[in-house]
């Protein structure tokens, strides 16, 4: 119900915005946010994620309380503010989502392929456990300051790789991330584009993800965000938890250091 009302309301707000943009452009998402007050439909994903986290599942009949997200087993408060990071047990840098997949596999005995059968939900009955679990863990870092670890050589290498990918132009349209996100104050149609090479913009953008997407009625994660950016760049399908996905997340997360997490956020 919230979703349907929200989508309709946003639709008419966008129509108003289109008419009046020449003068003072109103921000329909900001108005929607104000209307909801402190409420965000993302809370339903957080609650579902909490239940998934705490319910014994899989062949090993275990819950996820033994999952180490970098701050020790079972510690989720503040963990997202220090991700991605190098994990000694896997010997590689992982983002939140690939780490959760790893925990589900090792603690509960559910193979990654099974968990990732539904990477991204459709806002309806086709639901992704990853979107719920991610929302739950991220919410426990609300108000925490981004401080991505940067002492391990692999963390530095991931950042450097992510930076290169950010500027990598390819495909029929010659697009890179920086085509849309490399200059300040630009829009595509009416949508403002954050300049992710600018610390202030990078913080504001990163700390609002994952987010409930009003237009999709779905909670979207950082893996989804990157995947859909690459789709629009005319690239093939970004593999969930791949080296490129993690490296690019590392570059963006590190660029957002010092920002205060306010996620899951609320987006257009």
């Amino acid at each position: 119900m919230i979703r349907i009302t929200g989508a309709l309301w946003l639709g008419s707000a966008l129509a108003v915005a289109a008419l009046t943009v020449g003068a003072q452009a109103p921000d329909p998402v900001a108005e929607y946010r104000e209307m909801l007050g402190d409420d965000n439909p993302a809370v339903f994903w957080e609650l579902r994620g909490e239940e998934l986290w705490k319910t014994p599942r899989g062949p090993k009949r275990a819950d996820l309380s033994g999952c180490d997200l970098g701050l020790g087993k079972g510690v989720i408060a503040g963990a997202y503010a220090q991700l991605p990071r190098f994990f000694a047990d896997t010997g590689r840098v992982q983002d939140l989502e690939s780490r959760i997949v790893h925990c589900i596999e090792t603690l509960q005995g559910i193979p990654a392929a099974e968990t990732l059968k539904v990477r991204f939900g459709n806002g309806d009955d086709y639901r992704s456990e990853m979107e719920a679990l991610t929302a739950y863990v991220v919410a426990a870092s609300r108000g925490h300051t981004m401080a991505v670890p940067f002492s391990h050589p692999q963390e530095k290498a991931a950042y450097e790789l992510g930076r290169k990918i950010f500027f990598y132009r390819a495909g029929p349209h010659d697009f890179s991330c920086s085509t849309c996100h490399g200059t300040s104050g630009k829009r595509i149609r009416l949508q403002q584009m954050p300049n992710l090479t600018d610390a202030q913009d990078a913080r504001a953008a990163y700390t609002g993800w994952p987010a409930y997407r009003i237009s999709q009625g779905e909670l979207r994660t950082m893996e989804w965000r990157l995947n859909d950016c690459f789709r629009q760049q005319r690239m093939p399908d970004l593999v969930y938890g791949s080296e490129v996905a993690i490296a690019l997340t590392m570059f963006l997360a590190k660029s957002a250091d010092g920002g205060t997490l306010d996620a899951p956020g609320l987006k257009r």
Partner: protein
Amino acid sequence: MKHQAWAGALALLLGLSATAATAETALVDVLRASFKPKNQATLERLDQDRTQQACSTGRPVSGEAAVQIIMDSRDTIRDPADGRYLGDWKAGEIVAQNGRGKQYSDDPAEPSGGNCYACHQLAQAEVAYGTIGPSLMHYGKLRGRDAAILKYTWGKIYNAQAFMPCSLMPRFGHQQILDEQQMRDVMAYLFDPESPVNQ
């Protein structure tokens, strides 16, 4: 002595370019391992041509690299076979508005759009325009339509790299995003006195 110095410089140059080539190969391999082909979006799309590679450094391009891009790109431009630059502005408007095409989520049987409005202001009445590129409002009205400006604008749409190295604009002709008739129609949208762009 002079020869030795040249040989040394050449060896250094070759050494450096060999290192750079290895680094680029490694990067494209990482990319290929991190993507899966989906519908029309194959893994070949991750490969770079020389221009794309020169424009991926994160720094502005200058000097010889910039000249090289202009030289490479100039040679790719094909003027319309019959010398006719202008088509139907109404069809051009559809191309300018259409943001679909070449994404794995798009139907490859449908024609691609030019998505001009994503980055450019064109007709005054269309307020949903982007600002990554300059405003093109009153394009023909301000510039006239003599042979030189028609040829230049055609080339710019065909391959913008020939005029501005590392331009953010897609190479609509060179990369076969738009066909010749679509480009003629977009040209008419820019130049036709009846087009809303010139109202």
